[in-house]
């Protein structure tokens, strides 16, 4: 692992941006989140570089920044409506379903989305996910279960997909 911050960024930035994009579901937000995290990491790089796995620590910072950012955004993102995927013949059906799934993934509470990304995209075991999010492994399994149940319910629902709007944090948050 490189001890030099610039070398670390040169080696790991593409992977961090990919992870950020999948986590945030939006390239612009991902760039902002990764930039903010790297600024903070640079300020305490002497300490981070001594860790066994600095990249894991930085990735944890990315997750925390994303969760924190999403909570702040709930307060002011204007309400809007995303049109539903129209039932169309194959092969467009597949793409429409994918678009709908993307939209529903974007609406999940941030911790639930983070858990799905860490488990299904990164392939982390629940113990490590719990470490990243600062919760118990049982809580991780609960997030996965609720997230999948929510997706199943919404994907079978024909109503339009609501975009993020001001609301209280989900009761599933912070567990």
């Amino acid at each position: 692992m490189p001890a030099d911050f610039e070398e670390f960024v040169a080696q790991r930035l593409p992977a961090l941006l990919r992870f950020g994009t999948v986590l945030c579901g939006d390239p612009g937000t991902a760039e902002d989140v990764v930039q903010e995290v790297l600024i903070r990491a640079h300020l305490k790089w002497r300490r981070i570089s001594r860790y066994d796995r600095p990249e894991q620590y930085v990735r944890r910072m990315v997750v925390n920044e994303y969760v924190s950012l999403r909570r702040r955004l709930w307060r002011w993102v204007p309400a809007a409506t995303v049109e539903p995927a129209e039932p169309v013949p194959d092969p467009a059906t597949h793409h429409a379903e994918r678009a709908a799934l993307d939209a529903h993934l974007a609406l999940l509470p941030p911790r639930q989305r983070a858990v799905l990304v860490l488990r299904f995209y990164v392939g982390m075991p629940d113990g490590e996910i719990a470490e990243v999010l600062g919760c118990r492994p049982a809580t991780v399994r609960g997030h996965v279960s609720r997230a999948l149940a929510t997706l199943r319910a919404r994907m079978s629902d024909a109503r339009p997909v609501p975009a993020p709007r001001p609301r209280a944090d989900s009761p599933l948050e912070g567990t």
Partner: protein
Amino acid sequence: MITADRVRDALRAQEARTPDAPGLLGRVLAESSRRRHRRRTVGAVTAVTALVLAGGVASGVTRHPAAPGPATDRPGPPVATASGAPDPSVPAPPRATGATTAQDDPTVLGADLGLVHLGLGRMPAPVQTVTWTVEPGRESATVDLLDAGRTDAVRVLAARTEAVLARDVRGAGGAGHTTVRGRPAAWYQRAERADGDGPATYLRWQPRPGVWMQVAGSGRARLAAVAAAVRLDAVHRCPYPSRITWRPAGSTGVRCALEIVRDAAVPGGLSYWPTYAIGAGGQNGTIVVSIGPAGSATGPTAAPSGAVRVGAAVGSFATGYRGSARLWSLDLRYPRTGRHVSIETVGGSYRDDDLLRVARGLRGVETAPDDPSGWPADPLR
């Protein structure tokens, strides 16, 4: 049916939208440099406030039993510091011509916020950043040395009395003796603190009667080398690019600092980050005004709501806590030059209205050159 495989496929498909983000590293380094500068600025001013509240060069601080004895008034070797031509590898503020050096008269140390009487010769490692600071009764240079890709800070502090230095070694114990250019010197050691602040080593000595020096950082060999490079035979200016035409009633300058950063991206290879603090003592606290060079406003400074306009500049307020002290800050972005101005107060009685008045009273931010040789010495005149 939603399965784990479908979720996995959907997430992986989003990889294709990953941005290229050219220039991200440059933005990260510039912004972290700006934040580090702000953090250092406010942290140091808190120390100055404590000094002012305690009555300046207080006499009630007891000398550590391991400290070297005071140099006598006999002539002896007059000054035990480096001398000769200045070392160009150590970035320094513009020279002041015709001013009395601390070598000739120690009472000039910390007597004029516009003058730095401290100097540094060749350092034991390449220098990345130096912050030169003048406060009432003391002067300092904080040097970031490059070592195997990391920077390691060493702080050189000069004062007219040992009591001023003793404040910095609170919690440290005596750890042996040595000499610096033939003068007796004492080591102090502080263990890692509960708040995560790392261990520190201090070396204190008296290069001549009336002057106390202290070097703080890590690594005894490195600190000894820095101590041997300290010099008192030159005077530099602590200039400031703007005039501060409004300040709270009763306040005056309590700190001037110039941070000089090696930056290959700017003409001349150095960027200059000046800071000036004003305060009235007592419980009022201080207001710190830091000005970045052209293009330094890299971070978002204007929130969608609550944006503030000050002349041509656009900015925003933020408030929070630094430690247990209340923090107010006003960040301004000047559109023509891209200069960033940060006005902060921590603790004390000043509030956002005071910061806004200070901002409105700033003159010359957009027209000042980046080179400090043309800046005036006193922003309050």
